[in-house]
């Protein structure tokens, strides 16, 4: 399979200290993240607010510059190429945002909204715009008769379909879906998930699917990465993560999700504490203050992502085989 996106040791710190101050503080939004996304595949990125999942999306889109690290699109480093080149490859990376109410210009008709990417990236000839707009609308399940309407004439679910049509207009290889269904009602959510799935099969596009809801991630993803405070703590195929979660945070996350079952055990153990500040993350493993398995080493040494089994990777000292053996040896 072709590697579409490769992210290597990506770091993004936001400076938050007041101007001219000597002691600089940084929000460590993304702190050393690496992953690959292959052709036609969906990587699910799951985590709670402030874990850096949306920042990763913005970094890949080139909306913010990384502090360090590299992003490759089909082998080309998008941070070191010229602006002109970057403009060209932008059409290969598209995005669908969370809020379809603010993602569409209220003063433009749907036809204008969808023609814009066509003209910027010269996808089709000008006299074919309206034909192409019709094709795109039909692809996402909106009547082509509605092309002259304005965004406010559509419901939230329909607007999200239009956002998706705009994203696929440039025939991208890769789409970042940043919480595309979390603003939608349940009965509309499943329509959009099915649409994204159909389009992936039809257009062979890869997705980075960013979401906080575990059941949605399970449904859409081939592989899943779980993030906590700017780092990937566990990564693997969807089956590996959901059938056999290993990291204490992943386990706790699964236990916190409400179950659709009134007979389930309501008083199961839940994770205490809150997400620490990303400005001063805890020393060592950033999860250790909330982790019930934490030992001495967890507050001193940062764990790193290591392969456990097959493609299952985890960043936790509990699974530090090398360190345990070291302890035994000394």
């Amino acid at each position, binding site marked *: 399979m072709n590697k579409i996106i490769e992210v290597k040791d990506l770091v993004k710190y936001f400076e938050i200290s007041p101007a001219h101050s000597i002691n600089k503080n940084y929000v460590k939004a993304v702190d050393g993240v690496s992953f690959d996304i292959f052709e036609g595949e969906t990587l699910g990125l799951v985590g709670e607010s402030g874990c850096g999942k949306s920042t990763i999306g913005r970094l890949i889109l080139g909306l913010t510059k990384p502090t360090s690290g590299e992003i490759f699109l089909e082998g080309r480093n998008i941070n070191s190429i010229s602006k002109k080149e970057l403009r060209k490859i932008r059409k290969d990376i598209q995005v669908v945002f969370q809020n379809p109410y603010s993602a569409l210009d209220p003063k433009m008709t749907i036809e204008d909204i969808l023609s814009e990417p066509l003209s910027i990236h010269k996808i089709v000839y000008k006299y074919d715009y309206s034909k192409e707009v019709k094709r795109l609308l039909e692809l996402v399940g909106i009547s082509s008769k509605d092309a002259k309407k304005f965004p406010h004439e559509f419901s939230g679910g329909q607007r999200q379909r239009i956002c998706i049509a705009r994203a696929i207009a440039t025939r991208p290889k890769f789409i970042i879906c940043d919480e595309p269904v979390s603003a939608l009602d*349940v009965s509309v959510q*499943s329509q959009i998930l099915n649409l994204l799935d159909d389009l992936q099969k039809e257009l062979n596009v890869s997705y980075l699917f960013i979401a906080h809801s575990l059941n949605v991630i399970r449904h859409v993803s081939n592989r899943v990465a779980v993030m906590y405070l700017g780092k990937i703590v566990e990564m693997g195929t969807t089956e590996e993560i959901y059938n056999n979660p290993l990291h204490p945070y992943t386990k*706790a996350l699964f236990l916190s999700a*409400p*179950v659709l079952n*009134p007979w389930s055990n309501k008083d199961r153990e839940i994770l205490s504490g809150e997400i620490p500040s990303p400005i001063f993350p805890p020393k060592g493993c950033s999860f250790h203050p909330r982790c019930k398995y934490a030992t001495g080493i967890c507050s001193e040494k940062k764990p790193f992502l290591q392969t456990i089994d097959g493609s299952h990777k985890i960043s936790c000292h509990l699974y530090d085989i090398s360190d345990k053996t070291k302890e035994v040896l000394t």
Partner: protein
Amino acid sequence: MMDRLLEVKDLKTYFMIGKGTIKAVDGVTFSLDRNETLAIVGESGSGKSVSALSIMGLIKPPGKIVSGEIWFNGRNLLDMPEKDMRKIRGNRISMVYQEPMTSLNPAIPVGEQIREAIVIHTSASKMASKERAIQLMKDVNIPEARIRYKDLPGKFSGGMRQRIMIAMALACYPDILIADEPTTALDVTIQAQIMKLLRTMKKGLNMSMILITHDLGIVAENADRVIVMYCGKVMEEAKVEDLFRNPKHPYTVGLMKSIPSIDTKVAKLYSIPGYIPHPSQFPRRCRFSNRCSKAKDICSSKQPDLIEVKEGHKVRCWLYM
């Protein structure tokens, strides 16, 4: 028969906007027993929040309670003068809102905001009410409550602010707590903590709770009884076990089927066709008829009634007539 605490009868709350009338709540009837948790589930525009605001007497123009009765402690809240209603609101019936970020006054220390609720409804002295407020902050598990009493809301995280909101709502040991999407703005791990806190507080204070949510998972874990609302009407009412074991209304069934499962993966998700109609364009007859896979001729010509099909299980659908 359990002790009936609140009874809402044929409540109609309309919003007069421009030329049209939006029937946000259109003939809703339900009751709440003592120590019970009643969940109101529905999607946006179903009228679940407007029902709650109607009980609280917080409907403002252009909204208007057109008809109906809300019985609490032998009195109809809708006939009550505002002066009396103030003694009930925040005292006997209180509410927790969805947005912990905007529901607190950013310029007043959180402790003082909790104390305000106590001062308004009791004759406690300044010292006593402050101690009560600190105790309440401890009850909702805010660490170092005495020190944090003086902090402004901006110094608290979303989960902590929601705890403050809960402390404020519980300040007078209410009979009924209305929680309107109390965890929607929060992360899953924090959501689990807040729901657990609500369950413990409800037990400890012998309260009844109306839990408004769109999340069926939260319903399954917290409710005793459920009403499912769609476009201003109650579509189904049942005990939580009955609803999950045997959902009857095509809307409830569709809703449950369209939620992706966390345990298994299906090739294609079920989805209810169409969209939730705009409140000014609700279908004239059965409001779900234009999206229903089992719709018959009668569904688009006559409004079905809410019929009891089994003890405690009511459905508004022509399939069960």
